[in-house]
Structures are given as structure tokens and as C-alpha cells.
């Protein structure tokens, strides 16, 4: 019984990290129809940047901010000078983001070497909650809290703010939104920066749990894709539920049959694609 609870917590924590990554990816895909294959690399690079900041003496919270901002800036540059040049060519954009992912990944190995680096946990959050015989690591609870807070914040942003209204208009009908005077190019930049920032900050946040290592990007990116396929495009709720499901499956899978953990990941994908190709909450076919 304890096993299920502990692994469940791990699964929710991992799912939460996945949500932070997948939400940014889903936002970018939903609005700009760009499959940002660099997203995993952004996550990894953000983690490395945060790690270097911490090494330089900066506190953990500031490091998260630095990680997020650094990647937001990188994302802004890439969106403005590379992706925008290819607007109207979605497949070209995908391939370019793939190329950029490789460049970033190799640059990370160059700058931070190939050794896996754990990110020290902030002292405020070390230790565990003890309930009966169970110990719930505080940091994991914190991460879950962050994900739900983020989900609420994003929901608020999308449903209740003017920016959100513009984003939703753009997702629904881009040319109409433009015709109504919404400055879509600025909107694109804002959304891409936001998505990138989430990836970068998420990487730092994930550091104490996942560590940072070469290959983190290609470990996380396909999971983000599976989340989007599972949860549906353009759905924040889908991204959240999908992330948690994948997180739980992965966690239980890892613990129960470590060899076959990845095989288990196949199952939700196969089920969703066969029975409900729009994903659990999606409104359009993928």
C-alpha cells in the first residue's frame, strides 16, 4: 500500500514537471502551429543555466528566474529571426527547431561536459512530511503545488485576461483575429517567450529531482509529445491530465517493471490514437 502511495507521489511530481514543459509546448503549438522540437533542449539548457547560477552563489529561486528569462530571450531571438522567416511553412519550422535542438544539445555538452549534474535542493524544501509510516518528500509536494498553481494561472490568463482572449482568438481563427486588429506577430512573440520561459524555468525546477545530463532533452521531449497527443491540442486541461497520467504510468512502470517502463508508455498512445484521435480533450484532429 505504501508503495502505491509513494510511487503515486513520485508519479504526480514527475507529471507536474512534465506539465510545466508540455503546457509551453501546447501553447506554442496551439497558437502558432509550430511543433517546437527544441522544447526539450530549452528545458535542459534552462536547467544548466540555473545550475551555473547556483554554482555562482545565486539562491535557488533566483536561479529559476534566471533560467526562465535566459530561455525566454533565446526563444525570442529564435522566433523573431528564424521561425518567422519560415512562417507559412509548418514543416520547415519543425525541421529548423530540430536542428536548433541538436545545436543546443551539443553546446550543452561542450560547455558543461557530459557528467550528470544534480541540482542542489533549496534548503527550505529539503526533508519530508511524515504521515504515519510514510515520508512525503517536501520538494515533490512543492513541485506538484507549482504545477497546479501554474495551471490555475494559465487558466486565468487564457480565460480572464485580454491577452488570453487574444490568444484564444488566434487559436480559433488566425486570419480573423488579424482582421480584427490583433497584432498577431507580437502575440506570437509573447506566446513563444512564455512557452520557452516555462521550459527553462521548468528545467531548473526539475533539477533536484531529475538532475541535468546530456540526453535530458531527448528524454523529455517525446514525453511532452505523448502528453499533447493524449491530452489533445489546444487544451490546457488536456495537458494537465495528460501529464499526470503519463507521470503516473511512468512512475509505476519504472517501479514495477523497470525494463518495460517505456513499453507501458505505448499503451495510452495506442489507445488514444485508435479510439479518440483528437485526444482526451482536444477539439481538432491532431
Amino acid at each position, binding site marked *: 500500500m505504501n508503495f502505491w502511495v509513494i510511487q503515486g507521489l513520485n508519479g504526480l511530481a514527475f507529471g507536474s514537471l512534465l506539465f510545466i514543459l508540455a503546457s509551453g509546448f501546447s501553447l506554442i503549438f496551439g497558437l502558432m502551429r509550430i511543433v517546437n522540437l527544441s522544447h526539450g533542449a530549452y528545458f535542459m539548457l534552462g536547467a544548466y543555466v540555473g545550475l551555473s547560477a547556483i554554482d555562482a552563489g545565486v539562491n535557488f529561486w533566483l536561479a529559476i528566474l534566471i533560467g526562465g528569462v535566459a530561455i525566454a530571450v533565446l526563444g525570442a531571438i529564435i522566433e523573431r529571426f528564424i521561425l518567422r522567416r519560415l512562417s507559412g511553412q509548418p514543416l520547415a519550422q519543425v*525541421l529548423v527547431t530540430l536542428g536548433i535542438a541538436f545545436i543546443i544539445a551539443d553546446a550543452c555538452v561542450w560547455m558543461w561536459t557530459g557528467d550528470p549534474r544534480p541540482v542542489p535542493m533549496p534548503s527550505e524544501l529539503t526533508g519530508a512530511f511524515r504521515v504515519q509510516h510514510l515520508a512525503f518528500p517536501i520538494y515533490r509536494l512543492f513541485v506538484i503545488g507549482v504545477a497546479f498553481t501554474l495551471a490555475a494561472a494559465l487558466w486565468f490568463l487564457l480565460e480572464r485576461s485580454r491577452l488570453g482572449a487574444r490568444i484564444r482568438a488566434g487559436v480559433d481563427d488566425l486570419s480573423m483575429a488579424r482582421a480584427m486588429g490583433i497584432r498577431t506577430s507580437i502575440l506570437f512573440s509573447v506566446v513563444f517567450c512564455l512557452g520557452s520561459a516555462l521550459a527553462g524555468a521548468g528545467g531548473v525546477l526539475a533539477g533536484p529531482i531529475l538532475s541535468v545530463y546530456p540526453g535530458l532533452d531527448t528524454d523529455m521531449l517525446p514525453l511532452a509529445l505523448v502528453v499533447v497527443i493524449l491530452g489533445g491540442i489546444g487544451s490546457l486541461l488536456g495537458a494537465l491530465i495528460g501529464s499526470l497520467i503519463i507521470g503516473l504510468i511512468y512512475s509505476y512502470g519504472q517501479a514495477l517493471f523497470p525494463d518495460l517502463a517505456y513499453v507501458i508508455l505505448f499503451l495510452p498512445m495506442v489507445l488514444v490514437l485508435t479510439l479518440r484521435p483528437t485526444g482526451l480533450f482536444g477539439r481538432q484532429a491532431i
Partner: protein
Amino acid sequence: MTRTSRAQMVLSLVAIAALVAMPWLVTSDYYVNIATQIVIAAILAMSLNVLVGFGGMISLGHASYLGVAAYLTIYLTSHAGFGPLAGALAAIAATTVLAMLFGYLALRASGLGFLMITLALGQILWGIAYRWASLTGGDNGLGGPVRPHPFGVDLMNPTAFFYFTLIFLAAAFWLISRFVQSGLGQSLQGTRDQPRRMRALGYNVWLIQWLSFVFAGFWGAIAGLLYAYYNQFVSPQTLHLTTSAEALLMVIAGGTGTLFGPIVGAALVVILKNVVSAYITRWLMLLGIIFVTIVMFMPEGLVPGTRRLRGIMRKSQGSPTTQALPVTEERPT
């Protein structure tokens, strides 16, 4: 329809002649082995080009068939007691069945969705190979002395093996070129250009795409078989996204609209990779830079006479704003 200009034909014939005569022109086994690598890569690239160039379907998971066939060949022949022929046939057959499944799943979407699904499926396979160490050897990979000696010919000799693979390349080239000009191949190209029109003309677009996907997977498996024979070793890296990306680069660099393009692309990428690895360790970064450069500045590829890729890249798939009518992919059940 493929249009091979006269210059391309001549160039290709010269290249083929050089390829065949090469072992005599060159003294070092090292170069013969590079040529063998090119041949194997060319088969992989040609198989992917069936999807990308002739089908307009961009896959980032084609390494799946290379890797699975390679793993199965080594496992069955070296660890499960299969004979060389039985092992090869079983590996090819099983990989083709995998292509049937993956094709079904990937074709639940089109364009970007298709790409995402192929990528995800490919990486899941990589994860399986990496984790299921008891079966696949995990990160250490799987090895075994699997190179066959058909009719007593010792294929451990690099030159002999080179000609062995060349036979497969010739067969692949011949059969794929027949496919391209066949009813199914022409239907596939029509589907690439005007899917809605093809439906109205009575074509089952899904079925045509799925059959082509399986055909492409089959030839990817052949490449995997030869890969296993050549390296006598396979690791999860063979299934990784970077391998799929390299295959796609071969297709893009060589030019997607032709039969020779992928062969040229394969040669370029293999040579580049070998040269680069000798001097610097930043192959991945170079791969990325080349991708970005080609996509942004040379979408026609390096082989002249093709404009397919730019056309394919321009196709907006599934964007709600570019479709006046919803969902041409909708399948009434």
C-alpha cells in the same frame, strides 16, 4: 512523376560505375568500408524518400525499422539459435509487421501530427532498447558474429561484403523505381499533391498511404539487416531520434523528388560524418547547423531539378485558419 534530367542520369551512371569499380581503384579497406556504409545508408534514405519525396509524409521515426531489424537479426541469429537465413527473414518480417502497426497509428493524423507520432513512437522504441537491458543489452548494445557466408563466400572480406550490399542496393533501386512508376506509386504521388481530389476520383487515400508506409518500412528493414551484418553490433543509438534525423537529412540534402537524390544525400552525410568524426567531436552540432541551413536557404536540396521539398514544406496542415471547410481527413465511421 520523377523527372530525371539528362545531366542527372549521366552523373548517376558515372557514380554507379565508380561505385562498382571502386574496390579496384582504392587500396585501403577503410575506404571500401566507407563505401559500404554509404550503400547501406542509401537504402535507408531511398526507403524514407518513398514517404517524404513521393508521399509527402515527413517521418522522424524511420530509424525504427533500421534499428528493430538490426536488433532482431543479431538477437535471433546470435542469441536465439536461428540460422542465418531464417534469422534474416524473421527479422525482416517482424519489422515489416511493426511498420504496419506504426503506419496505422501515425496515419491517424497527417502532416504535423503524423510527424509527432512517428517521433514519439521512435523514441519509445529507443527507450525500450535502452531499458530492457536483459533483452537488448541496454546501453551496451547487442553484438554477435552474424555476417553470413552465403554459398561459402566469406563476407568478412570487406570487398566481398561491399559487393554483397551493392546487390541489395541494386535490388532496392530497381524495385523502388518500379514502385514509383506503378499504379500504387502514381496514386501515392497524386495523394501527395491533391488528397481531396484523389478521394473524389475514387482513391482510398488512407490505404494508399498505409501501404506505402509499409513498403518504406520494409526497405528500412533491409537496410537494418545489412547494418547488422556490417557492424555485427547494434546499440540503442541506432533507434534514436538523431539517427532518424540523419536519415531525413540524407533525403533532404540529396533532393526529394528523384530516385538518385537519396543516394547522393547518403554519400554526403556518411562522408561528412566520417570526416568530421576524425577531427572534431561536435557531429551533433554540425548536423543541427546543416539542418537549419538547408531548411532556411536551400530547401531544394543539393541535387538540382527538385522543388518538391519546398512544396511539401509550404503545405499547411490542419491549421484551422487555412481550411475553409473542416477536416478533409475526417473518416465517417
